[in-house]
């Protein structure tokens, strides 16, 4: 059995498909940034103690997480503009940022929450005793301690989002996947085209994953030191 693989076509296709990398990577970071910011919105909405609001927020988050991001993209891009009154027509790139950004912000919000809950309650008490305002407590005391330990988890979400971004090709964002589709159909070279896409993703995801792993180890070492000190303190009690 002969595999129909042409190296000359592979090398012709590679630079063509690679042009899409800026859109793919750009969209990834745009979505990530949106999710990082919007994640805080969930954190603070969830802290509202008023029951109906709390219930609504939890339910909306659950809804966003349990519907496929692809459906959310289609809804934002195709369906939303059709709603009279509140419909807004967005470009495919904007729709992708909004759709994937909001979808992943619900996960990132949970990451933040775990970080915030990891801050010792004594830190809140000390900042009350020093009479910091609510805003200062968050910005000066709590978040600077809550966020650094979550960096590896956030990094993992960055890689996961990178791998979900090709979904945006379905609403017309021209990243590497869309270019591969074009090249493949125009030249009847599906095998080379999609191999190239897979290769590009591998070449970017794998080193990033290693980097994040290293970062995690480094951070863990820092926190282990602290944990050891905490333990010593506990042993005395």
């Amino acid at each position, binding site marked *: 059995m002969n595999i129909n693989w042409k190296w000359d076509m592979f090398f012709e296709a590679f630079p063509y498909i690679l042009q899409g990398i800026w859109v793919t990577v750009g969209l990834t970071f745009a979505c990530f940034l949106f999710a990082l910011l919007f994640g805080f919105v969930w954190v603070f909405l969830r802290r509202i103690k008023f029951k109906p609001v709390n219930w609504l927020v939890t339910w909306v988050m659950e809804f966003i997480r349990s519907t496929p991001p692809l459906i959310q993209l289609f809804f934002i891009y195709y369906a939303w503009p059709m709603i009279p009154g509140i419909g807004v027509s967005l470009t495919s790139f904007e729709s992708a940022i909004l759709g994937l950004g909001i979808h992943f912000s619900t996960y990132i919000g949970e990451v933040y929450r775990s970080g915030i809950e990891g801050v*010792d309650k*004594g*830190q809140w*008490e*000390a900042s*009350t*005793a*020093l*009479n*910091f*305002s*609510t805003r*200062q407590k968050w910005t*000066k*005391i709590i978040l*600077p*301690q809550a966020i650094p330990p979550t960096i590896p988890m956030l990094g993992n979400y960055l890689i996961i989002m990178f791998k979900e971004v090709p979904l945006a090709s379905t609403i017309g964002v021209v990243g590497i996947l869309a270019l591969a589709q074009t090249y493949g159909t125009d030249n009847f070279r599906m095998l080379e085209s999609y191999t190239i896409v897979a290769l590009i993703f591998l070449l970017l995801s794998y080193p990033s994953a290693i980097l994040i792993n290293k970062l995690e180890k480094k951070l863990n070492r820092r926190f282990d*030191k*602290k944990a050891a*000190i905490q333990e010593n*303190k506990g042993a*005395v*009690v």
Partner: protein
Amino acid sequence: MVDSVKEKNSSGSYSSNTGPIVEYKNVHKSFGDVEVLKGLDLDIYPGEKVALIGPSGSGKTTIIRMLMTLEQPTSGEIIVDGKNLWHMEKNGKLIPANEKHLREVRGEIGMVFQHFNLFPHMTILQNCMTAPIQVQKEDKESAKRRSIEMLEKVGLGDKLDNYPSQLSGGQKQRVAMARALVMRPKIMLFDEVTSALDPELVGEVLEVIRDIAEEGEMAMVLVTHEMDFALEVADRVIFLDDGVIAEEGTPSEVLEESDNERLQQFLYRFRS
């Protein structure tokens, strides 16, 4: 003892305010079904040093935590320097205090905790100077200068740029005291500040408290298990038992002369 306090106040050496700086009026506090404080009445005068002793669960820590606004009383009033702490007036009615009101009143109070609660992401110096700059809007240079002076006073002038994780427990607690003191509170609360320390580190912390106490102008409330220390530093010792003040008086009256049975039982453990 109470007479001598009044004398100090009328002579005006401590404050123009001749009345108490803190008044607890029939304060109750329950956690769920458990009532930890059963109608506390207590006045603390400017500059007075009060030691709170008693078995665990007697409510002594709750007393100072309510003053620091870390716990809300179930009922009753706490008056700080003439201002109602947990209530504010609106249209002639008393309503529960909001955060703004709490911030106004608790600015006069400082607290040192059993577990130090230093900010681990800040250096020792930053731990001390952040609140004066952010909360009291003091200019950076003067806050820094005063923080360094204060840290030198507690013997940590050479650790300014270290992080809390690099210090011993005793050093951490001295930083915590410096951090509270740069805010220039009128009332300082000490919540079992030596009980998380190795025995050999207790001395250095007590020494600093003794120095602060000798300066005199600040009222101090110490929740402590160091009976000898209470005897030495306090103007007044209060023995709490089962949510009420069971005995109160000068240190020698309470620790040496009282025949309160519960107090004797309690003290027995420390005299073995």
